[in-house]
C-alpha cells in the first residue's frame, strides 16, 4: 500500500491519493510513515522535473496534493516525531526591487526535496536582510533570484554588502532567473549562475561535496 501511495502521488492522481490517505489512517497506520511516504513521492516528482518529464504545472499540482495530504494527516500526528536529517542549509531570496517568486519557489521546492534545509526570504529582500540571514543561519550557500534587468545592480549590491560584513569568504553565491546569465554573474561577483532549478541543486550538491 505504501508503494502504491508513493506512486499515486508521484503520478499526481488526486482522487486516489486522497482516498488512500484516508484509508491508511482508518487502518491505523502510523501517520509519520504516511508523511514519510509523501516525501518519497515528492522526491520522485522532483526527479521527473529534473529529467524533463515534469514541468511547472506538475510541480505546482504536486505541491497542492502534498498540502491536501498533510491537512488530512496532521490532526493524527501526535508529538513532534523524529525530524528528517537534512544535508545542509541554503538561504534563497529575490533581490531588492524585484517581486517575482515563481522561479524562487521552484528552487526552494527542488532544494527541499533533495534534502536541504531552505530558508526562503521571499521577494524584494533588502540587502541588510540577506546579511542578517547569513549571520543567523550560518548557511554556506546563498541563492539570489531576480527576473528583471534592474536585479543586476541589486545582486551586485547584495554581494558587496556580504563582503563588507566579512561574510563573503565563508559562502558560495549562486544567481538565477529571467534575464540572468554568466555576464551578470561576473558583474555581480557571484560564484555561479544556474539556468534552472536543477542547476541550483547541482551547484549546491557540488559545494556540499555531495554527488
Amino acid at each position: 500500500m505504501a508503494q502504491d501511495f508513493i506512486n499515486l502521488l508521484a503520478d499526481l492522481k488526486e482522487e486516489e491519493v486522497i482516498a488512500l490517505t484516508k484509508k491508511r489512517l482508518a487502518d491505523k497506520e502510523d501517520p509519520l510513515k504516511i508523511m514519510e511516504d509523501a516525501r518519497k513521492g515528492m522526491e520522485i516528482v522532483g526527479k521527473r522535473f529534473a529529467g524533463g518529464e515534469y514541468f511547472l504545472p506538475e510541480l505546482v499540482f504536486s505541491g497542492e496534493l502534498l498540502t491536501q495530504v498533510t491537512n488530512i494527516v496532521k490532526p493524527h500526528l501526535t508529538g513532534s516525531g523524529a525530524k528528517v536529517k537534512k544535508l545542509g542549509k541554503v538561504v534563497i531570496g529575490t533581490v531588492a526591487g524585484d517581486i517575482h517568486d515563481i522561479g524562487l519557489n521552484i528552487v526552494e521546492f527542488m532544494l527541499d526535496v533533495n534534502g536541504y534545509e531552505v530558508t526562503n526570504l521571499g521577494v524584494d529582500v533588502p540587502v541588510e536582510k540577506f546579511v542578517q540571514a547569513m549571520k543567523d543561519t550560518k548557511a554556506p550557500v546563498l541563492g539570489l533570484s531576480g527576473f528583471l534587468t534592474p536585479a543586476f545592480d541589486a545582486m551586485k549590491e547584495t554581494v558587496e554588502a556580504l563582503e563588507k560584513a566579512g561574510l563573503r569568504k565563508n559562502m558560495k553565491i549562486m544567481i538565477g532567473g529571467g534575464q540572468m546569465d554568466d555576464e551578470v554573474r561576473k558583474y555581480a561577483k557571484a560564484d555561479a549562475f544556474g539556468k534552472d532549478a536543477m542547476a541550483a541543486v547541482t551547484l549546491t550538491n557540488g559545494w556540499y561535496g555531495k554527488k
Partner: protein
Amino acid sequence: MEKPWAELSWQEKREQRFKRWLSPPGVKFASPKAEKVYKERVTRFYKAFTGQVPDRVPCMLPTGFYAAAYAGTNLGTVMYDYEDMKRAWRKVLHDFEADAYVPPTLVPPGRSLDAIDYKLYKWPGHGLSKTTLSYQAVEGEWMKPNEYDDLIRDPSDFWLRTYLPRVFGAFKAFSSLSSWTAFEEIPSTAFMSFGNPEVQAGFNAIMKAGTESLKWFGAVVEVINESLYMGFPGVMSGLAKAPFDTLGDTLRGTQGVMMDMFQRPQKVHEAMERIMPIAIKGAIDAVATAAAPIIIMPLHKGADSFMSLKQYETFYWPTFKKVVMAQVNEGIIPILFAEGSYNKRLDIIGDFPKGSVVWYFDQTDIYEAKKKIGDKLCIMGNVPSSLIMTGTPKQVKERCKQLIEVCGKGGGYVLAAGANVDEGNPENLRAMMAAAVEYGAY
C-alpha cells in the same frame, strides 16, 4: 472600382495598411529629407517583417524606459510629471540615431492608477522603492476557481462586477451593482444599485482617472508627433495577448491556471475560447486609427520553462494561433514576442503562412530558429540585455555583427535586444545601431 475590404486577400489588406503607414494621414514632415528617411525606414521594417530583403537590417533599440535613467530622472517621477517625461523622451529622440522611435506610451499615468487604487501592479513609489526602474505585476488569484462559469457566460459582466472590484480598489462596491443587461423594457429597480454612494465614488474615481489620462496622453502625443515630423516611425501600435496568458497572468494567476490544467481542464479550454474573440477585436481596433499595422504579442506562460511541449500544444497554442491568424487575415502583422526561451517549440511555431508573422526571441537559440523557420518567417532579437547593460560597446557590436551575419542572411531579420534595457552605457545602444548600419546592408 476598388474591391470592398471584406473581399481583399490578407496580402492586399496588408498592402493597404502599409500604404497608410508609409503616408500617415495628417503628418507634416519637418523637411523633405525627414519624409524621405521616414519612408525608407518604414519600408525597411515592412520588408524585413514580411520576410523580404530590405536595403539593410533594421534595428529596434531596446529603450523601453531607458529614457528616464538616461535623462537623469526615473520612472517613478515621469509617471507623475509629464513635463519631465517629455523632456526625457525628447532627449533620447534627439540624441540617438535610430530606425524607429519608442514613445513613452508604456509609461502609465501614475495619478490615474492612484485614482482607481490599482492593485494588479506595483510601481516605483507605490509598493516598490522610488528608484526601481520598472513596474511589476502582482501574482494573485484575481479570479477564483469556482468562477469559470461566470466568466464564460458573460466576460464583460464578469469584468465589471467581479474582476474589477478586486483590482480597482475604488470599484470595491461594484460587486453590488446590478448587471447592465438588467436594463430591459422600462427600468425601475435596475437603477437602484447606482444610487449607492460607494458605487458613485467608484464612478467618480474612474472619471478622474480618465481626465488625468487625457492630460498624460497630450504629452505622449506631443512626443510621438515630434518623432514623426523628424522622420522616425513608430513600430508597434498595440498589444494583444494569448488567451492562456490572459487567464494565467490576469485572472487565475500562474499557480491557479496550472492547478486548473489538472483539476478543470475543460473549463480552461472553454474560458480561452471565450476570451479569444475579445483579444482579436482588441487588436483590430488598436490598429484601426494607428499608422503602423503592427501588434505586439508578449508571450508569457507558454515558454519552455513553464510547460511541456505537449501542454503547450494542448493548452497554449490552439487559441493563440487563432488570435494570430485573425490578425493576419485582417492585414495586420503580429510580432510574437517569445519571452524566456522557445527552444522546444521551434518545430511547431513556423506553422503560419509565409511572411505573415514575426517571431521575436528573447533567449531562444536564434541561430537554430533561423534554420528552422527563418526561410519562411521574419525573426527578430536577441542581443542579450545583460550584455547591453554590463558589457562594453565593442562586445555589443561584435555580438550584433554575428547576429546580422547569421540571421540576416536572405532578409527577414530585425536586430533587437532580448528584453528592454532600463539603464546603462548609452554607447552600448549606439554600438547596436552602428552594427546595423555597418554590417547590415544587403
